[in-house]
């Protein structure tokens, strides 16, 4: 039991908190058809972290987090600029910007030997969930993610009504004096914050999955936004817990002597949940006819 508390509970809580932090902005990204932004934000984190390390020589989470936030902010501006100047649709502009910046991060990483500080491409993709154990003190990621999830939840509560209106009908929202552009920028910032915090703990694959999969699953099964948000939080935590346990124990159950990547398994579970929701939703739609 002690072993569970020290070695399994902290990573499971971290995965759940990362999922919660991502799901909150994720629901609104999905509804405003900006789901790709989650993808973009979690990829541009890498060059930000590498650049922060190169500039400061510090490997502390705060410094790297700040670098990642700056990179996220820059890429958000870049995406707007590319969208306008090249007259691309936003999805294409995001894809161009984030792949370029991620590639830049990989090149920086390889040419500067930054990999010495626990930074490598594999780590960037899958994170390091299994190593976030309780060693005399809680892992710093646990506190950081709790704080960020709480801040995002509070902010969402505060701007709920104007945000819903601005997401549903931005043009009408403007006539109601709602600062639509600021809310849009705020959602981008919230996405960046969640992506940076989650990336450092669980890697980019799981971050992208958590930004979209639980919200997309919930959207298929619910008809009001509060219900969608609640269901998406439930899906997120459920996939974090199930995925972690499956990664650690499923191979042992079938007699295989290894474990799987927890992040990879959690992302897979959330994808399977989406597939299940799609099946249920299409079955329902057929039943309603």
């Amino acid at each position, binding site marked *: 039991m002690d072993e569970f508390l020290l070695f399994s509970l902290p990573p499971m809580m971290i995965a759940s908190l990362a999922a919660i932090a991502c799901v909150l902005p994720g629901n609104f990204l999905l*509804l405003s058809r900006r789901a790709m932004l989650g993808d973009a934000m979690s990829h541009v984190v890498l060059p930000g972290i590498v650049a922060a390390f190169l500039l400061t020589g510090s490997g502390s989470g705060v410094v790297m987090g700040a670098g990642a936030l700056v990179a996220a902010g820059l890429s958000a501006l870049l995406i707007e600029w590319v969208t306008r100047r090249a007259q691309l649709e936003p999805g294409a502009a995001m894809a161009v910007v984030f792949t370029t910046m991620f590639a830049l991060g990989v090149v920086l990483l390889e040419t500067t030997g930054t990999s010495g500080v626990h930074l490598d491409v594999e780590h960037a993709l899958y994170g390091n969930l299994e190593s976030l154990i309780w060693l005399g003190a809680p892992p710093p990621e646990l506190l950081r993610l709790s704080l960020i999830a709480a801040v995002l939840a509070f902010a969402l509560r*505060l701007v709920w009504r104007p945000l*819903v209106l601005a997401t549903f*009908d931005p043009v*009408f929202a403007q*006539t109601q*004096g709602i600062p639509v552009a600021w809310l849009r920028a705020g959602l981008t910032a919230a996405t960046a914050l969640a992506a940076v915090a989650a990336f450092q703990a669980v890697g980019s694959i799981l971050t992208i999955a958590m930004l979209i999969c639980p919200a997309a699953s919930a959207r298929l099964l619910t008809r*009001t936004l509060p*219900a969608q948000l609640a269901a998406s939080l439930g899906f997120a935590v459920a996939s974090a817990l199930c995925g972690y346990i499956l990664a650690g124990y499923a191979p042992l159950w079938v007699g295989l002597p290894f474990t799987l990547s927890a992040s990879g398994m959690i992302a897979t579970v959330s994808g399977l949940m989406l597939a299940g929701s799609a099946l249920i939703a299409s079955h329902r739609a057929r039943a309603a006819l």
Partner: protein
Amino acid sequence: MADDGAGNRPVQAKDQTALMVQGLTLRYNDVLALDGASAQFPIGSMTAIIGPNGAGKSTFLKSVLGLVAAEGTVLAFDGPVAQAMARIAYVPQRAAVDWSFPVRVIDVVLMGCYRKTGLLGRIDRRMTAHAMAALARVGMQDFARRQIGALSGGQQQRVFLARALAQGADLFLLDEPFAGVDAATEAAIISVLKSLRNDGATIVAVHHDLTTVAAYFDRVLLMNRRTVAEGPVAATFTRAALAQAYGPALMLDPTGKLGEEPSERPAA
């Protein structure tokens, strides 16, 4: 002065004008979407904005509301339009939003109460009752708890109108309120608009069905990037003015269903 019902109220003193637009010009990448359009909308009038596709009718409304940055002067109730926004209700084109969005009918109507509840204000029972009354006025009270995606096109349009009613505005700007709606909805909408007008509100609607202009509206603004003609329907909605706005193709089709392409001056 009472409205004589035929829309013959002359535009007189300045204080009788709900909306005054002067020289509205908007350029999108070297294409003129609006070219100095001007118009006046007297208080208590009901105006159809008509013109061919690409004439800038929707853009005209958006520019009036400051949603796109056009040059020119717009005065609403004798002041800058930005200061009169609380008195103006805008009904966008139905196609402008995602109707699969997870909100209920009543939630959409409550969006019209936004200014009343304040920036982050909560919805109380009084506000909900207010929204329900607006829904009842368009005959949609039984649908309040439905998800908006479950509605027909006509029902969706009525919900949009209910949201505008909930705002309690004096000036209503509607973009194609009859596009793709059933006959019952069209009748319900026009009856609500006429009763609003009779209560002193000013109605401005982008309209595409030339056969119903005279029956529904008392004034008309004919435009094709610039104002071609404006005034009471009887004096303004003439064959000559239509030919000027739509091009001679319209002459072949007295119902006005054809001839939507501007024949003159193709867009650059």
